[in-house]
């Protein structure tokens, strides 16, 4: 935020001279006809989504008996997927709110798409708690509404209810933040559409832009409300996944009950979210030719956050394992030995390798600037973080306190299909977003275009060698 920028700093936008060029580059996908690959992949993801919805319908028709869950392992794919998708959302909030407070200019290019990702991921997540009730139509019972069901009332002492509040707050704030941030850009598109003579489009974007006219007073209010919203969103980065972790940690089940869960889940959520940001951004910048805005430096910064959060997750795994031993509690010790060497050992080691070992590859600049390798590693992270939740949920449950209650869990095609269906839904929404809305925040990126000129007396005094 200083009006002096050191000459050794990189530029966050490359090969771009004018504001007009930025607008043209970002608006191009919106103004041109849908491309064939776009149509193809949107159709494919739409079909996958429909497949998922059909299996959801089947589950509702037959009951959750079509899943592989049993008395001992009562939570499995459903809650694993729920936590997985909520976690994915966290990168968007971190980028839009926390990185704003930390004055990180590189967030300007990726915040829009990451926030969109957050919203779609939270929508996918919200499906699962509803589904695992088996009776979707009773989802209303989640809400603390006055009712005629006698004494039936939500349990305010239950972390599951806190979760309802946490997730719905999260969705609301993210949606408002995302949409509000888009209004000036929607107005830009409206004006361009009007100029190009596309009346219907201009009308639609005009309605979406809430009649934005870009006066100084509007901008001033806009800046203030953005700031307030980012202040409100910052605690959400911590609180949402902390409360998700309490779904487990408030219990007395070894492997679930441990005090490090809240920050550990938050670190994991940010980690998985950034893994997904990598996956999506590598594709987006390539397809829409946005390499001048989402530069190699952006990708490197994301990779560095992945190292940091991946290592934090690794520290949490180690701490948990160590303290399980240190506690001297035979239950705790058994839960962790069983995790690593019991019947689900492969899921533990898949988790550990993907989440702790692979991100360390980003220490090498050659790897983090190689987009093919980064893409592959980001997929490993997505897989690893899904396995983390599977490990926590299934391996902790399948060995009950009584050996006679021990059981194994195997997913059925219905559960797997629903999970794949949510990927279809996620991608379907993301494709629609990337075609019809501006994937890059134009007005914020424009603030980075002109590096302030370096005062000459500084160069004289410092005698710095400029190597940038």
């Amino acid at each position, binding site marked *: 935020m*200083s009006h*002096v920028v050191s000459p050794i700093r990189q530029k966050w936008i490359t090969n771009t001279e004018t504001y007009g060029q930025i607008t043209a580059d970002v608006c191009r996908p919106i103004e041109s006809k849908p491309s064939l690959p776009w149509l193809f992949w949107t159709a494919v993801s739409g079909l996958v989504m429909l497949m998922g919805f059909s299996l959801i319908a089947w589950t509702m028709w037959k009951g959750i008996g079509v899943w592989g869950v049993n008395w001992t392992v009562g939570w499995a794919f459903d809650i694993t997927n729920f936590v997985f998708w909520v976690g994915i959302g966290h990168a968007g909030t971190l980028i839009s709110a926390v990185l704003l407070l930390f*004055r990180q200019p590189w967030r300007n290019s990726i915040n829009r798409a990451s926030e969109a990702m957050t919203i779609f991921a939270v929508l996918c997540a919200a499906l699962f708690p509803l589904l695992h009730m088996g009776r979707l139509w009773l989802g209303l019972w989640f809400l603390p509404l006055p009712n005629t069901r006698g004494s039936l009332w939500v349990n305010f002492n239950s972390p599951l209810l806190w979760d309802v509040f946490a997730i719905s707050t999260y969705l609301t704030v993210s949606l408002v933040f995302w949409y509000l941030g888009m209004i000036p850009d929607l107005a830009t598109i409206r004006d361009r559409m009007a100029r190009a003579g596309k009346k219907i489009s201009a009308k639609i974007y005009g309605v979406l832009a809430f009649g934005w006219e870009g006066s100084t007073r509007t901008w001033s209010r806009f800046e203030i409300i953005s700031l307030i919203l980012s202040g409100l969103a910052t605690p959400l980065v911590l609180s949402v996944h902390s409360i998700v972790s309490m779904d487990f940690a408030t219990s007395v089940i070894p492997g679930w009950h441990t005090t490090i869960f809240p*920050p550990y889940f938050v670190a994991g959520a940010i980690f998985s979210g950034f893994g997904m940001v990598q996956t999506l951004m590598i594709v987006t910048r390539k397809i829409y030719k946005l390499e001048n805005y989402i530069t190699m430096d952006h990708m490197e910064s994301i990779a560095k956050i992945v190292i940091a959060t991946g290592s934090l997750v690794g*520290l949490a795994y180690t701490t948990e394992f160590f303290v399980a031993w240190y506690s*001297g*509690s035979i239950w705790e010790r058994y839960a962790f030995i069983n995790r690593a060497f019991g019947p689900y050992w492969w899921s533990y080691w898949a988790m550990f390798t993907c989440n702790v070992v692979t991100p360390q590859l980003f220490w090498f600049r050659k790897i983090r600037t190689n987009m093919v390798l980064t893409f592959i590693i980001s997929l490993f992270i997505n897989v690893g973080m899904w396995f983390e939740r599977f490990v926590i949920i299934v391996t902790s449950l399948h060995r009950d306190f009584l050996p006679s209650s021990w059981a194994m869990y195997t997913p059925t095609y219905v559960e797997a299909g629903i999970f794949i269906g949510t990927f279809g839904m996620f991608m379907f929404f993301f494709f629609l977003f990337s075609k019809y809305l501006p994937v890059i925040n134009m007005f914020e990126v424009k603030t980075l275009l002109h590096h302030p000129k370096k005062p000459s007396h*500084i160069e004289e005094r*410092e005698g710095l060698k400029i190597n940038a």
Partner: protein
Amino acid sequence: MGHTHHFTKEQLNERFEMPGRLRNLAFGLIGTGLVLLLAGIFLGGSSSAEKPAAPATEEHHSSVTHTPDAQPVSDTDEAHGEEAHETASVGKRVLANLLLCSVYFLSIGMGAMFFLTVHRIGNAGWHTAIMRVPEAITVGWLPVGVVGFAAMFFFLGNIYEWAHIPPGVDALIDTKRAYLNEPFFIGRTLLFFAIWIGAALLLRRLSLRQDEEGGLSHFKRSEGISAAFVILFAISYSFFAFDWLKSLEPHWFSTIFGVQFFGGSMVIANVTIYMILRYLQKQGYMQYVNEAHYHDLGKYTFGFSIFWAYTWLAQFLLIWYSNIPEEGIYYVKRYRTEDHEYLGYAFFFFGNILVNFLVPFLGLMTRDAKRKLATFLPVAVVLIYGHWHDLFLMIMPGTVGQNPGIGLIEIGMFAAFAGLFIFLVFRALGRANLAPVQHPYLEESLHHTTGPV
């Protein structure tokens, strides 16, 4: 904000010289502290600790710590609680306070280390103009401050239950002896100190060499060292907290313990940096530091105190909610007001939230509160006490046991440490320029503004 005028080479090349008054204050604190400490020792512990011994220890212990199954928590606590009670001697109290103060000031040094390294790997520029202050804290304090721990190596058995109970007595401690034994404990600690002090000295050397030679090579080298340090710090600081603080009550365990200790350390480190800067500016130094720098330090103080409260809640809420006896015992000792023997801690328990969370949360919420000394100072005073309060609550129930008190020993020990800290840190400050004159981000920092936030 005075960021429109430019600072001359002379202004940036200034060096701190310790004023006589500050030196006197430091030595005065050391002297007074030692006198109070000795007085406390000769008077046999003072003030509230002189309350009559708690009655009926036996019953209360069993009512509190009964566990349903073979977990041997209750039995041993009783046995040793009894013994601890008889010998809750002055010596034990002195050692507990030595531990408290050593940890207190170490955490400032380590917080400053983290401040420096994490800004370096984050490629931050704003802190450049003030970085000599955290640098002086690390190299001034850490090499000397660790001596306090080294002294305690010889008295581990006096305050650490596991070091004093022979094998075969306590089944639960016996299962942990592979980790909780004196040679390994001392070895780990020495290794951590070597890493921390080594990194601090190395970074300082690079920073000073850059002053002389300029260029970017030293700056670039510091990035790798900082990254390595942050990784090692995360692991070692967590285990350090397990070793020196958590193992005071060796039956108890909590995975978040290290994170919470880290949160508290960052609060006190930021407060310390802030206050030292204010002092230096008042003495006429570092006129290039502006309100924006204070604002950012204030934001960290505010943010980390919320983070501390978050970790506090994670630990307390989860243990309270699950209500597992071997975990709950930790809080039973600290907040059960029905228990006469531990009654003294309830004040600290509830006060902890007040001083370490509510005061900074409400006191530093507004923009101006962080930028103006008049509003920051009262909060800083509370937080400087608050970190001590937090550590007191961590350390005393497991060492001094029942009937904690704040008396001559506590005050004297802290005053002596504070005096030594002031002397060493300001001496280190005087050994280099107050501004890193050749740092590539110095100019950014001199013109730092926080913008609308």
